[in-house]
């Protein structure tokens, strides 16, 4: 298992809908890994989450074999769903598109914590708040 690593690639793709087309083909193909094995396994594992972006983090080993884990949806996807907006602001410094209540911030931080390499809920909240700010979403 854990051998020397050639690359770590994270893909943000829609659950159940991976295909060899971009971004999967070119992003993984350059490392010489079995694209169809990934596509099949990813779609099987995410079939129940249709409609969500479910990131996969792929570790490619030196011998071009690989393994992957699924991650929680990106923070912006969770923020967007939590406050019911379509997109973040084009100019987040001036344009404000919504307000994320503190309670919801904590909920998202809790959900994302295992992927943020921290066990400190406040640190996780700061990261999610940063994402919110760059979308033009204020936290109150």
């Amino acid at each position, binding site marked *: 298992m854990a051998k020397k690593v050639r690359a770590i690639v994270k893909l943000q793709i829609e659950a159940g809908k991976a295909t060899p087309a971009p971004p999967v083909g070119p992003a993984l193909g350059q490392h010489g890994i*079995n694209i169809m094995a990934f596509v099949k396994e990813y779609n099987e594992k995410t079939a129940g989450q249709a409609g969500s972006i479910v990131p996969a983090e792929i570790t490619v080993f*030196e011998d071009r074999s690989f393994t992957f884990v699924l991650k929680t949806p990106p923070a912006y996807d969770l923020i967007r769903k939590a406050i019911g907006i379509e997109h973040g602001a084009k100019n987040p410094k001036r344009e404000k598109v919504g307000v994320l209540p503190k309670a919801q911030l904590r909920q998202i931080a809790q959900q994302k914590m295992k992927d943020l390499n921290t066990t400190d809920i406040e640190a996780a909240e700061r990261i999610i708040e940063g994402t919110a700010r760059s979308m033009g979403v204020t936290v109150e």
Partner: protein
Amino acid sequence: MDWVEISVEVDEEAVEAVAEQLRSFGQGVAIDVPFVQPSLYDDALTDRSRRAIVKTYLPDDGGVEDARRQIEQALWHLGRLRPVGELALRPVAEEDWANAWKEFYSVVHVGQRTVIVPAWLRYRRRPNDIVIRLDPGLAFGTGTHPTTRLCLQAMESRASAAKLVLDVGTGSGILAIAACRLGAPKVHAVDIDPMAAKAAKANIKLNHLSRQIRVYEGDADASAGSWAGQTYDLILSNVTARVNIRLAGLLAGLLAPDGEIIASGILREDLKTVVDAFGAVGLQTRERLYDEDWGALVVGR
């Protein structure tokens, strides 16, 4: 249809925000994550001190310039909150991505007799060849890595005499298959990773060895329960230095009186620590093998 890859280097904190921007213009997002190699004590870790590369892909149909301007504008605003690198554009020719990766594989000869043949290639078998067919992909072990080669090499003279073999961390199943091909009548293979266990089963089937090799999914400690009372003439442990150290006691208990363990997956600088760990459970190192940065041990009582 050809494509254009648009990429940008960013700090870890800005990855998600930039990914969102790119995704609203292109087809999906891929992120090259900076990392530090695994060590004796840690798995591979994300390296937060270096920048990640966030990429998306657009069809090369004349709309790229327009998208580029809009992305640049969006990133400029983001850049006022945190540092964001320059956009880079690269043409990507349409390929048969489902099959193109196969070019990286060919027939590999290991040791005196072992030949690893990718599932889609033909190979004319010579007398004495030990042929392993493999569909490389999920799970470690395509036969091209020194740690796998070292095991295959050490096994060639040993597996035929073994009545029962244990393969710990079987990955693609390559070593379990090799053990059978070399003459071992029965092999137990175990892997903690469910995807690996699945890949191993598929490769074992490809080699028509499902009757001889049994695959267990889970930690070797937990699986040991189902092997209670059995001892193994040969144990293949191509894992890591750390896992070899952790399992030394368990493996010693599963080893037949005259049996041997081939321990691999060990960086040269960690070899001594592993020799000591086996020594502490009463096993002596009989042979050391080296390939590039890697080493393997043959240990017994």
